[in-house]
């Protein structure tokens, strides 16, 4: 192998401490990452499908770093910020990721046909995200769209929903049952959940945008 290629391989690995785990060795991103990403999303029928495929691609790349560890949402935002900063040759910003921990103590109350709905939140993990993404990408292409992206972005943060006296623990539901629950909610309900999350995660809003920006790594 050419000495320069060896040099690239050597200097473009790094050891980082991820927020919810230990130190891990990661490869900095190279053209292969970009090229495979392009192949992954180029046949998407619409922009929304492309976004879901992009998120799944990045998630799978993160999972491949450490197969026996379930990366959390905090880990994911940390790594995205690390990579983007590295590509742009800037120091990673100090992310206030602790506010993601506060999700588990927060609730939102809605009204659904005069029944109160109490929603509890949680920090998502990547394996759970991937299950939702794979489910959505497995739906008929013509049905995918904006609502699928909203479903993904909102419901990965939900731990439970109490509708009237009935408690639905999301981890006990299949994704399709979970999706049926989602369909019960109106646009106004979704907006309220989305606004709650946006407000709570405001300090990491810029990295959250990169998380769904298919041009972020170009």
């Amino acid at each position, binding site marked *: 192998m050419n000495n320069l290629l060896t040099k690239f391989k050597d200097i473009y690995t790094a050891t980082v401490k991820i927020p919810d785990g230990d130190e891990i060795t990661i490869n900095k991103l190279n*053209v292969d990452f970009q090229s495979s990403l392009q192949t992954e999303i180029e046949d998407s029928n619409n922009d929304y499908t492309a976004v879901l495929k992009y998120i799944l691609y990045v998630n799978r790349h993160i999972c491949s770093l450490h197969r026996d560890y379930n990366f959390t949402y905090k880990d994911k935002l940390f790594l995205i910020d690390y990579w983007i900063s590295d590509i742009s040759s800037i120091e990673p910003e100090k992310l206030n990721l602790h506010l993601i921990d506060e999700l588990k103590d927060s609730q939102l109350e809605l009204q659904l046909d005069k029944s109160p709905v109490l929603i509890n939140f949680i920090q998502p993990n990547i394996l759970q995200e991937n299950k939702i993404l794979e489910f959505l990408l497995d739906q008929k292409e013509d049905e995918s769209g904006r609502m699928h992206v909203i479903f993904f972005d909102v419901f990965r943060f939900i731990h439970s929903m109490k509708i009237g006296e009935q408690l639905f623990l999301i981890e006990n539901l299949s994704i399709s049952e979970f999706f049926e629950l989602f369909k019960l909610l109106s646009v106004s309900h979704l907006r309220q959940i989305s606004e709650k999350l946006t407000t709570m995660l405001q300090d990491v809003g810029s990295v959250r945008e990169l998380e769904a920006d298919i041009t972020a*790594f170009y």
Partner: protein
Amino acid sequence: MISYNDVLEISKFYKYKQYDKVLSLTTKKIPSNNVIDFFQKCISERFVEESDCIKLQIDKKELLVYKKDFLKDLPPYEETIYPIDGYHITIGYPNVDLILPASCIKKIQHENTILDINTADYNNIPLSLVKKCMPHIKRFIKQLNTTYIYHVTTKYNSRFTYNKDIIIHIIYLCFVQNYTTLLEQQLLLMKQFNFTYQDFNFITPSMIADYLKLIQKSLNKHEQPSH
């Protein structure tokens, strides 16, 4: 050389919307160092005779695009060496087999070590280095994008943009023909005139068109009533 069988295969892939295969087969049959080299070779393959042209249907009329109007203002190939991040990086026009900005990077030199980049090597180039090259890469892409796919008149022209879809469109204009007609012609020549399938690997579509003209001429002669 793009043979009759190649055109048949490319046309079949295009008919069945297997566009990636259209691109990969064409770039395999027309090896090139960069997009400009590739287009120049496409032009040479497509426009053999002075009278050769691409026929387009525009505004319910037929627009004829001759060699002089096709891929007009394609810049001549050039490359420049830039000192970037401790390396001497040679940047030029991009490739057609890796349609990414990184393919503008042709060579990286660090002290006495030189890396002449081939397709497989691109994958190992760090994105942080590509990002530092971007201002120079953009200059080449911008210049490339001043090309026209065709420019017949100020009204009838189409601009080029460096992306996969446009490159596949150019391949379509150059090489895609009616798949069924191609098959029928091939069958006729094999059945009636002892061509083998392998023969079509060594004959261009233009030569086949010449054969078919001669056959037609001969048939017409025989059909004429004797005096």
